[in-house]
Each structure stands twice: as C-alpha cells, then as structure tokens.
C-alpha cells in the first residue's frame, strides 16, 4: 500500500453523469489487481473531508483509470480536477477478484459497477481465458458503460435496460438467466463475478448459491479509512461483521449474509 501523488492525465465526460479519470501512478498501477480499489483525496474538498473510494477500471502502463458517477459533494468536487493536477491516491486496497475461472466467466455489472469488471475481463483475457460474457444493466442506455471497451477485449456483451433503450428491456438478470439456462442445458461450468447495486448483487449471489457455482461479489459500503483501521464499512458474512475494505470488497457469494 502506498499513498501516491498521482498526476491527472485525462479527465473526460463519458455520457450523462459519468467521467473517466486517468492518473499517472506507476508504482500503484503495477501493484493493482482487478477488483481492488483506491481511496482518493478530492483536492477541492476541505482538508478534513473523508476520501472517496473507487474501483479500478484499468491499471496498466503506469496508469490508473477510474470511472465514476457524479452523485454528491465529493464526486462533484472531483469533477474540477484538470490534467496536470495532483491527486493523492491510496492503494492498492482490499481483496479483488480471482483472475482465474473454472468454465465460462459470467460478469454482471450495473452502473459504475462495470468498472472493476472491465479490469477483470482484461486480466482474464490476458491470461488466456476465452469464455468471458458480460451482462451489463442500467436504467437507460446512457448508464451502460464500457461496452465498447469490453467488446474490444473480445468479451461477449449482453445488455439490459429498464426502459428498453438498449438491449433487453428489463433487469440484467433476465439475459443472465437465459445464459444460465443454456449453460445448465449444455452442462457447462461457470463462475459469476458481479459489481453493482445491492439488489442486483443479491440476485446474482442467490443464483450462484442456487446453482452451486462460485460467485464473486464486489460490495460497495460507505468507508472511512479504506484500510481496515476504523470498522465503518461492515458487511455481514458467515464469519460475522466483516470489513468491506480489507476482507472485501469482493466476497464469495456463499459467505455473504443478506439482511
């Protein structure tokens, strides 16, 4: 872990409320694994403001890319970062996804939850894993992120939107269920990797547990320290109150306890 003084290289809007921020942080970039996250000090906020946690969309060639949605005070203030600005970035943090998969890798993402799945997809592809299918959902078409990037990696991408503006009209679990049915019919093995809103994660975890497949679920919990020091970011698991920032953010579906 290190607290990198990272130079912003690029900061662009990618549809409605989403932005991509590319940072120069060679040491951090080299150390990051898919599913891990970084804890960012937003330069414009007062010194006493807490950091904001973001998953890593990509880490390569000395760069760390995050993809974020502007939702509140911190992310709004983050919008002001300009290329050349220095941002303090603490990482790598947490336990990520395993970069291996027995059978087909089913990636399920909603909203900015696609970010860590992209990093995972690239790592799986790089390590020679062929069968990667990504199910991407959102309210409307502008919430579907990284679709082109995933396709460029050779990932089979299936879309779903609540309003039907792109892909299947419905929940991301609809195309997922189709695929699960097909896999079951063909007797093929698979693992599930998911990141997104809680209801979606629960639905995916239930499917993993129901089919006996491995499920890797990335949880999003409010954090203070990001390093395991404060016990703010609790996720209930079979082992009790686990810290999302060190025992997660990626948990085994079988370990999660839903309230």
């Amino acid at each position, binding site marked *: 872990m*290190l607290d990198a003084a990272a130079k912003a290289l690029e900061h662009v809007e990618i549809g409605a409320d989403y932005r991509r921020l590319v940072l120069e942080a060679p040491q951090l970039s080299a150390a990051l694994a898919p599913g891990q996250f970084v804890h960012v000090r937003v330069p414009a906020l007062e010194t*006493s403001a807490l950091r904001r946690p973001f998953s890593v969309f990509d880490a390569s060639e000395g760069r760390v890319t995050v993809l974020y949605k502007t939702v509140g005070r911190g992310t709004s203030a983050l919008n002001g970062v300009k290329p050349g600005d220095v941002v303090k970035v603490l990482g790598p943090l947490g336990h990520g996804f395993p970069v291996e998969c027995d059978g087909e890798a089913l990636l399920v993402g909603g909203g900015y939850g696609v970010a860590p799945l992209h990093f995972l997809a690239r790592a799986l592809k790089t390590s020679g894993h062929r069968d990667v299918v990504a199910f991407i959902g959102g309210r409307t078409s502008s919430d579907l992120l990284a679709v082109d990037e995933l396709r460029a990696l050779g990932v089979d991408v299936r879309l779903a939107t609540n309003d039907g503006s792109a892909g299947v009209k419905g929940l991301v679990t609809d195309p997922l269920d189709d695929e699960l049915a097909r896999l079951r019919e063909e007797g093929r093995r698979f693992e599930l990797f998911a990141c997104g809103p809680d209801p979606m994660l629960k639905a995916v975890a239930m499917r993993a547990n129901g089919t006996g497949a491995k499920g890797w679920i990335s949880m999003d919990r*409010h954090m203070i320290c990001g390093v395991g020091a*404060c*016990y*703010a970011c609790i996720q209930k698991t079979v082992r009790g109150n686990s810290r999302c920032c060190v025992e997660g953010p990626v948990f085994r579906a079988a370990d999660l306890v839903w309230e």
Partner: protein
Amino acid sequence: MISTKVNLGGLEMATPVATASGTFGYGFEYLGALDYTCLGAVTAKGIRLDPWPGNAMPRHAEVPGGLVNAIGLQGTGIDRFVDITVPHYMAQVKDAPPMIVNIWGGSVDEYAEVARRLTEAAATDECAAIKAIECNVSCPNVKEGGHTFGQDPAVLNRLVSAVRAKTTLPLIVKLAPNVPDMRPYVKACEDGGADALSMINTIPAMVIDIERRRPVLANVTGGLSGRGIHPAAVKLVYDAHRATKLPILAMGGVYEAKDAIEFFLAGATAVAVGTATFSDPSTARKVLDGITDYCERHGFSSVADLVGALE
C-alpha cells in the same frame, strides 16, 4: 537536535505523537502509507473481554469539519488480541512503536480483568509492544459500555482503583468531554491511581437524513470528531492541566503541527492524531516535523519544555 522524548506517566515515548484509539486499527493497517518512525506510540482500538460485534450499519456520517461515528467498539476479544493481533503487529511493523491498549467493558470487573490479562501478556516476548493501558470510560456509542463509568466521579474512582489494582502498566484514563467541569473527574482518576489522562473522546452528536427523515446512523447518535472539535479540546486540556500534575495525552482535531502545539502549551505532554489520518495518513509525520521545526524557531531544545509553556 531537538529532543522529542516525552514520558507519559511512565510510558516512554520517542516522540510526543501517538495515534488515537479507533482511528488506527490495531497498529499495522496503515503500513506503507505512513512512516512509523514518527510515532511515539500507537493506540489500539477498544478491546474488551469477549469479541464484540459493534453497531449496525451505517456507522458514520461525514459532517463539515469532521465526522460523526458510531462504530460501537467492534472488536476481537482479549484472547485473539494477545494471541494473534499484537504478535502480528510486532511482526509486521519494524521497530514497532509502543502500543497503548484502549480497554472497555460492561462492568468494573470486566475492565479489571482485561487489564490483568494485558499486563500478563505485556510480560511475554510476543506481546512486549504493549506498554500502557488506556481506560475508555467515555465512548458515547455503546449503551452497555463504559459511558456511565465516566459520568459519575464516584463510579469513575471505583473503576480506576480496580484497574489500578490489576496492572503495573502505565494507566491512562480517557475522559468524556461533555461535563460542566473536568475537576471532579480528574480528581477521581488521581485518587484512583491513574498515571495519566487522555482527552478528549468524541462529543455526542447526531445527524439526520432529512429526505428519509431518519437518523443517518443506525445507532441514532454518535460521536463528533475531527477539526471542528479542536478548540473545545484545547479548553478541556487547559482545565485539566490546571487541576492536576498528571500528564495528559491530548487529542481532538489534530491536523497540523499548530494544533499539537496548542495542546502542549495548554498542558498536554503528548498528542494523538485521530480523524486526520483518514484524510491524510501521513498527518502524524507532518505534525512531528512541524513540532520540531517550531521548537527550533522558538529556541526550545526539547518538546517536553513546551508543556504548559503559556506566557
């Protein structure tokens, strides 16, 4: 060369900068993000006899100038703490700074028993880093917890005496800030045989989500920490210092060297960095550097000379 050594009621600290309980885990979590050589001590998260699950989520809310938290003292119990956590700390952290162990319990007996266990452990090689006990009688977030102990001077005295009887380690008592007058509490600690005081704990606080019309914290109320409470903390340290010769470990909104120096001048022997670590893990380093710089500029050869040095 400025001497940064201080003695906090028998606890020898190489620097006057510690970390505050609950903000620095069990000591090793910030490895890599902070140069530990700046630390005179680390304070472990509150420990009691048995493991404790803490409060429901959410456990915190960001507010202007700081943070309101109601973690609820989640923690591993004393067994795991001495068997695994402290040895792990010592293995992970090279030249591990002395550890102050923050303790709490549901009864006087429980406090005393935890103190006894820690004292026993501190005598072993595996847990030799344990160098002091900080008795938390002031956490606002656990109903069954220590809060009431710190609110009544007589009860406080009984508690301190009981813990004192079970430990030869330096005994620090952490007091509550929300009292009309520190003096009776300070006296209760003195009479009970405390070696030092620490203050302040968080100030009781509450944040309401007006859109959902609910308290933000599952625990309803919590404790305010961070930058905004610093002037209130300085006042309490000043009051306590005038009431006692016991050394004081001061905390509450230390973000810069200036904040620490205010504490020294008000009468603190050492300071602890808490909430500031969350936004900048290297705060303790910057604070220490700023302190020695100040000493140089003002002709103090030792940080210890700053204590209570108001003109």
